[in-house]
């Protein structure tokens, strides 16, 4: 399958057609990330040699004519949106600045309202150990979010290892304690 796809890719390139527009090539890209990576590397190297963007360099003359107005239309839409957004951003910034300049209560330690919040950790591994007399004592904690969870909801899986080992007998004793806790707001 791979050879036939690469054959199609080279045929497209010979005809100066963008291979990424071929549905079969697209399907291969999606089903085989390695193929996609190699293809994109190839296209990028061609792009670098030619010094022009991939998506237009490999496009035939006829397709370019169709593409160009659509491309300009998209650029114009993005630009108009950018102008509107810049205006809104300026308005929001101005309002925010006014709010920020207002006098606030002192941030001294006895007047400010503080909070303790759960940390948003994507991964943490903490290891602590003491070496002495040819032995090591220590433990390890691993904190990871629950599988498939998004950044808005953090669960942590904690694995603690208590370990004692000697130079002659590595890992003589190993005890793992695993727990699953949800990072609910603390207060």
């Amino acid at each position: 399958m791979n050879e036939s796809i690469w054959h199609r890719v080279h045929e497209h390139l010979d005809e100066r057609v963008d291979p990424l527009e071929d549905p079969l090539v697209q399907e291969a890209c999606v089903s085989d990330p390695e193929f996609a990576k190699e293809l994109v590397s190839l296209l990028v190297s061609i792009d670098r040699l030619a010094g022009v963007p991939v998506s237009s360099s490999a496009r035939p003359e006829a397709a370019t004519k169709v593409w160009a107005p659509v491309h300009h239309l998209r650029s114009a839409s993005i630009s108009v949106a950018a102008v509107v957004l810049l205006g809104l951003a300026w308005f929001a910034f101005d309002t925010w600045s006014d709010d920020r300049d207002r006098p606030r209560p002192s941030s001294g330690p006895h007047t400010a309202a503080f909070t303790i919040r759960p940390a948003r950790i994507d991964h943490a591994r903490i290891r602590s150990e003491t070496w002495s007399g040819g032995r090591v004592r220590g433990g390890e904690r691993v904190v990871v979010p629950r599988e498939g969870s998004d950044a808005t909801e953090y669960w942590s899986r904690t694995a603690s290892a208590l370990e004692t080992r000697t130079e002659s007998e590595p890992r003589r004793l190993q005890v793992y304690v695993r727990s699953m806790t949800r990072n609910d707001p603390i207060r």
Partner: protein
Amino acid sequence: MNSMPLRLLPLGFLLSTCSLLTAQKPVATVEHDGPLNRTLVVYDVRGVAPLAAGPELVLAPAKDETDPDFEGSPDGSLDSLCRLARVFVHPRLLQGESIRAIANSYLVVFGRPAQQAWIRRFLDRQAEEPKPQIDIQFTIGFLHQGANLGEVFSEAPGGIDAGTLASQFAPGSDACVFEDAFADYVRGALMSTEQFDLLNAPRILSYPATDVSLSAITQTSIVRDYTELRIGGGLEEVVIADPQVELIHDGIQLRGRVCLLPEEDGLGVDFLLDYSELQRPIPVVETALSNGQIVKIQDPELRRFELEARARLQDGEVLQIVGPLTDGRLPILWLAARQLKLPGEGR
């Protein structure tokens, strides 16, 4: 161009300029009509932070042991940006989705529309001009068991309950974040007790998505053991005690990177910290050679604390992580990240 009336030229120029200011433009896109509507998009990231720093400043290994899927780019110069994008992309990458660096100039993202939108905003933030500097500070300490934290935090400010705060220092407690000023109070209160040792507080300034590292290592030679050398024979045999010298390294090594997240004032931190401390004076033990001669050898005690963390912080927040209880001591680490603004910037 021919179809554009002359009166629209200034508007066209303005719009073209604005379009240059918009998001990072993909070089190539492959659409896929699967249930998740994933696309393969190639982003040209030649204008983004780590490349400007030059590959000679990139110290991270190309292979990441904690992330088996992460291969890194051939020369490592895009690794930092690619790794940060993989770690912090929202929504998270699912099976089959990927972010890779290729040709030292491009980021290839295969993901859902929400992820592609996030990547565009993420790249835009790293390319912001002027590039903000980010002040990263670690504080490492050991809390000894037996400290009455309820009493230590009895005057906790801002309506925080002393018991709630004390529970954050229990072995196995979850990581949490404080406001900067409150973290100052917590550290100050702990340092007022004899049960807390403040060990080190390294500080680094970094540009977004650029690798930083810090290393301050002390080498100490110790006599670990003796080897007996026998010279001659019979009554003339001489035993020479040949000392076996060992080099102990202790100190701090820090390596990582920080980025600006698209979410408001968000900072993503990705760090590896290795702290070790040789107890001094080094205990000395007497032992006898085979001929009865007494020699002294050293039995060092090395305390080591290693942290690997990838977390999201708001500007000015402090992350607190409590390590596993070791020999009656609880390692505690605070990590603060703050954007430094130039005078007059951001008012």
